[in-house]
């Protein structure tokens, strides 16, 4: 196995390897490429939106196309870019950080990725098949139930399939953290990134079913003649809003918590200090997750829930500022008096603190019910959530990619290009979104495809669009950096003088990660060993055979079946002949499940002799 891996292989062999892989490190690559691709698509959509708003009364995009653009921008960025990029980082790092050889369910890991990928492709097929969804990323009924054409059908089926993949991924990480930790890796010795990913996975487990239910109801309303959201037949449109936000609010914590973990690891590594207030950080993360489930109605203050309900949700929302504040202060205290190295990773992390804090502050502002009646559906809200999602999640993903790129690909990203990316993106980001607070306060509403020349919104929107171009430039530089890095500096095993277990493996790690499972003797296990003058981890077991899972093509085929069935679901409303496609696709997926269940696949062993032959 491992000897073959060092030889040059043809393109076909590499492709087949990736299509069938169950190795968490290769699935991380897949998530990165998949999520990166959709990030670029979502970015192009964002650019088209900003070009449309560059001047008053612009006619670059038609009104209908603009609606499709904002819907797809939001949906793509949340479900198809941010989530998979986070999963890419989790897959690449989490098993290494707890000293595991793979995730708990490698087959499911692969299935989760392919479901996400085919769901994303299905959603984007809508562009070429009569128009994309146009009911906003929130898909509020009755707009979504009455939207003509098949756009929203693609939204429902695409998100349903991709959402199943996310749920599978979340459960997989939960079980991995519970069951796969190396000897000595107690819960309170886990790196913060692992902790945060674990808690985010709990949120995925509890929040995604609400979306699944909502999407099923919407699917039946649109495709099979039910009336859950049809008021004229006794339905209730508000149910959709509740279901969507019961999922949607925990979702934003799913998007930010793992990156909080990234920043915690980055700060302690580059400040050369133990993370300040480790226990407080863990419990603050739990508290955010806990509170995250009781605040969903703050998206619905103007629906008319009444003053009591609004007050309760308002107070619960403001309470989240407390654990978040604990985290901000702990990061600052970690930096305080540290031996700080500033590189691209650190720049993203340092810039995150003020950027995210601005987003948090406007968050408390929009949580104030009386004031929210003014902010609601204005550009102030657009500015708020871009400050938290870009200033938190995207900054975090960039920090994580610069930090762990050596572990993922065995190369170090170019520092000069990295700094160019950072500064252009940072300036572009604040240029784009800071002014939008004021555009919102001046009365510019969300989701309108034009503003008029008499509205005094011209300058602000022009500045915003210029900023967007800077961000686009930064992303292009990053892509170039990533490509160039393939020929760049070869990374040592531990380029940053790291503290956690992933830096005890080679860059990139062997496909079994650890030849011998390491013994963890404290928080920041590698640092504990370094402090005692040892170069590597103490093994917890003698060298022996390693049991590894076999590759499988079934996850790809299973997801393909659902993808085909998705088209059947969408088009059977036009012509019942499409039911054949629906049933065919489902039957194919079922057959794959049967094969998986009936066929014994016990994996393979890497023998002790083979391990001894390999010089490390």
């Amino acid at each position: 196995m491992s000897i073959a891996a060092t030889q040059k292989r043809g393109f076909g062999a590499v492709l087949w390897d990736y299509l069938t892989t169950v190795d968490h490190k290769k699935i991380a690559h897949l998530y990165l490429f998949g999520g990166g691709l959709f990030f670029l698509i979502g970015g192009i959509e964002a650019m088209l939106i900003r070009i449309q708003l560059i001047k008053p009364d612009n006619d670059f995009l038609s009104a209908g196309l603009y609606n499709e653009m904002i819907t797809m921008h939001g949906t793509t960025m949340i479900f198809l870019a941010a989530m998979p990029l986070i999963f890419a980082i989790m897959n690449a790092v989490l098993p290494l950080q707890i000293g595991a050889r793979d995730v708990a369910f490698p087959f499911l890991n692969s299935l989760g990725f392919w479901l996400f990928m085919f769901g994303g492709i299905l959603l984007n097929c809508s562009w070429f098949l009569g128009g994309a969804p146009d009911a906003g990323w929130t898909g509020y009924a009755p707009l979504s139930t009455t939207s003509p054409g098949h756009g929203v059908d693609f939204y429902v089926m695409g998100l349903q399939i991709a959402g199943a993949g996310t749920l599978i991924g979340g459960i997989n990480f939960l079980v991995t953290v519970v069951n796969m930790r190396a000897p000595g890796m107690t819960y309170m010795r886990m790196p913060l990134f692992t902790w945060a990913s674990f808690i985010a996975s709990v949120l995925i487990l509890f929040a995604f079913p609400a979306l699944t239910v909502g999407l099923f109801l919407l699917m039946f309303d649109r495709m099979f003649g039910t009336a859950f959201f049809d008021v004229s037949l006794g339905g209730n449109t508000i149910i959709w809003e509740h279901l969507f936000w019961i999922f949607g609010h925990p979702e934003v914590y799913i998007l930010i918590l793992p990156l909080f973990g990234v920043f915690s690891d980055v700060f302690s590594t580059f400040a050369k200090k133990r993370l300040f207030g480790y226990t407080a950080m863990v419990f603050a993360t739990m508290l955010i997750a806990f509170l995250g489930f009781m605040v969903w109605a703050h998206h619905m203050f103007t629906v008319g829930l009444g003053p009591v309900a609004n007050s309760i949700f308002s107070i619960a929302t403001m309470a989240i500022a407390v654990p978040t504040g604990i985290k901000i202060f702990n990061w600052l205290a970690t930096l305080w008096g540290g031996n700080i190295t500033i590189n691209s990773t650190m720049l993203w992390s340092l810039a995150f603190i003020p950027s995210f804090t601005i987003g948090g502050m406007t968050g408390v502002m929009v949580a104030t019910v009386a004031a929210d009646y003014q902010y609601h559906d204005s550009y102030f809200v657009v500015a708020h959530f871009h400050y938290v999602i870009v200033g938190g999640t995207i900054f975090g993903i960039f920090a994580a990619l610069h930090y762990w790129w050596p572990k993922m690909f065995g190369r170090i990203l170019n520092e000069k290009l990295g700094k160019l990316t950072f500064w252009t993106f940072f300036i572009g980001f604040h240029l784009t979104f800071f002014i939008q607070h004021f555009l919102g306060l001046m009365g510019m509403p969300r989701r309108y495809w034009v503003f008029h020349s008499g509205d005094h919104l011209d300058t602000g929107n022009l500045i915003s669009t210029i900023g967007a171009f800077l961000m686009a430039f930064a992303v292009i530089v990053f892509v170039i950096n990533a490509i160039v890095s393939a020929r760049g500096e070869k990374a040592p095993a531990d380029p940053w003088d790291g503290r956690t277990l992933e830096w005890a493996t080679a860059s990139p790690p062997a496909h079994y990660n650890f030849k011998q499972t390491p013994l963890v003797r404290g928080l920041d296990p590698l640092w504990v060993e370094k402090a005692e003058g040892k170069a590597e981890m103490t093994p917890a077991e003698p060298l022996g055979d390693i049991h590894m899972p076999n590759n499988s093509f079934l996850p790809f085929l299973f997801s393909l079946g659902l993808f085909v069935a998705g088209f059947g679901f969408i088009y059977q409303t036009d012509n019942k002949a499409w039911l054949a496609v629906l049933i065919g696709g489902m039957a194919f997926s079922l057959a794959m499940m049967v094969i998986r269940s009936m066929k014994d696949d016990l994996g393979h062993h890497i023998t002790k002799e083979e391990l001894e032959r390999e010089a490390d």
Partner: protein
Amino acid sequence: MTENTGSKLDSFQKKKNKEEMQQQLISFALMIVFTILAFVVVITGMDKMIAIPILITLAVVQVGFQFYYFMHMKHEGHEMAAVMIYGGVWAALLTLAGLTVITWW
């Protein structure tokens, strides 16, 4: 492990298994009784204000049996499963409570 302690452990394990089986059968019988009770409550046409709390109590007890006896949550090493299940119950109850308060308050 030497042989004679092995056989001792064996008989200990046998006794344990026997107890376990007894408990399972008792809880199984109780669950059937509870289910019949629930039907009886509905058939007799009791006042709703009494019937609904009784039904809910019976349901909660049955769920408890299910978790602790059939899904082995009373055994050691199921702490994380318990945390997750109660977390899920909490999230679901919170949602229901929220929607109820919003609708009827």
